[in-house]
């Protein structure tokens, strides 16, 4: 189900409660943030924090046109903020322990690892386009960048991901 089908129309747009958005979107958002961060635990934490902010926002959240997009942008921005503050610690920790993965995903680890190796700006655009089903103009709006920038990042991201996966397959 594409998020816009239910969340941008119907009851959500006019003020459904956060719990309904949670039931419809939580898992999908965690996977998207997993793609962005490369860390399943971090993704869960960020999405939960975004829902806390949605509850705290009250009526302001209920008025947004697309609650799932609001939650995703909030979670991505939380990630960026934390990354700025904790990047050195996070790098050291990941080097020691390795970033957490979702158990049961073994057959997809190549994809997860390939995503992790991409620059974050390419990774975010790929995730928004392929995992969140967002069109170029919607990604541009969500990230506050020009459509041309999104197209360029999408193209470079596709090439980079294919190259990473190609290397995995060859090795």
């Amino acid at each position, binding site marked *: 189900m594409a998020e816009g089908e239910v969340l941008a129309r119907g009851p959500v747009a006019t003020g459904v409660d956060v719990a309904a958005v949670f039931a419809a979107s939580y*898992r999908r958002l965690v*996977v998207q943030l997993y793609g962005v961060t490369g860390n399943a635990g971090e993704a869960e934490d960020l999405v939960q924090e975004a829902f806390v902010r949605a509850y705290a926002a009250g009526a302001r959240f209920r008025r947004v046109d697309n609650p799932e997009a609001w939650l995703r942008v909030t979670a991505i921005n939380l990630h960026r903020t934390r990354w700025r503050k904790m990047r050195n610690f996070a790098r050291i920790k990941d080097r020691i322990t390795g970033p957490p993965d979702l158990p049961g995903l073994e057959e997809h680890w190549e994809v997860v690892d390939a995503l992790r190796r991409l620059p974050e700006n390419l990774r975010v655009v790929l995730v928004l386009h392929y995992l969140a089903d967002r069109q170029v103009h919607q990604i541009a709006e969500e990230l506050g960048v020009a459509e041309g920038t999104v197209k360029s990042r999408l193209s470079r991201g596709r090439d980079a991901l294919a190259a990473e996966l190609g290397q995995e397959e060859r090795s």
Partner: protein
Amino acid sequence: MSESRLRAFAERAELLVDLPDVEALERRGSDVRARRRTTTAAVALLVAIGGTVAVQERFQRADEPDKVDTPGRPVVPYPGNQMHDLAAGTYELTPSSVRGDPTALITLPTGWNSWEGPNRFDGHQSDDPTAGRYNDVPLASLTWYVGVLVVKVLGISEDACLTTPGHYRFVETYAESVAAFSDLPGYRMVAAPREEMAFGRRATHLVLRPRDVVDTCVHEAGVFLTSANGDIGGEEHLELWVVDVDGVPLTVMKGATGEVPPEILAEQSAVVDSIVFRTHQDN
């Protein structure tokens, strides 16, 4: 091929995500709301009692520039981005790291905090002179924030929500600065830029708001590259003046985030109105 593998990963991963207790998230959200309401009400009451009177007595209006008497006003060098309380008084800001560039005098009432520019936020412990060093505690849970910056902007982010410095549109002249601010990524202009006299000088006035989708990141991202403070973030409500100070373009930014009480907004306006530029010839 790689796209289909990406989608296959997402479909599988979605089945593996455990749902947390949504009621616990709701309780945390409700707690945040309750704290926000309590703090805002308390601050609004305090400001209503004392703030308005102090502001009225202390400040001179910008439309009365002849009454500004900078030579006789005791001026304290602004401490810069050290987090602590500022005593009421007039401070000299240094917007540029270039020796000989203009400085700015700014007058503050009590209750303001030192950072890149003076700021004020809920939870500020201005009654306790030793509490300044703890301002990072209320900063972590604030519900509103106002700040005033006087900066020499060298570059403007080419990307909203930028997290790593390095992607700037560089500006040198007054005209380049106005053009770049008029096209600030992630922001929309509330009204067309207006050329006017401000702070006794030629200036362009702009009022900007972040686009809805980026309003959660603007104060965290490096929006502006400045001469004296490196990269700094934006605010939810951003009003600014690009000022031609004897050929040097300096920018006065009046930023606000959150539900700021009207008394605080009035106080912030008075702080902006107090700004007087001091050039090399004045010294």
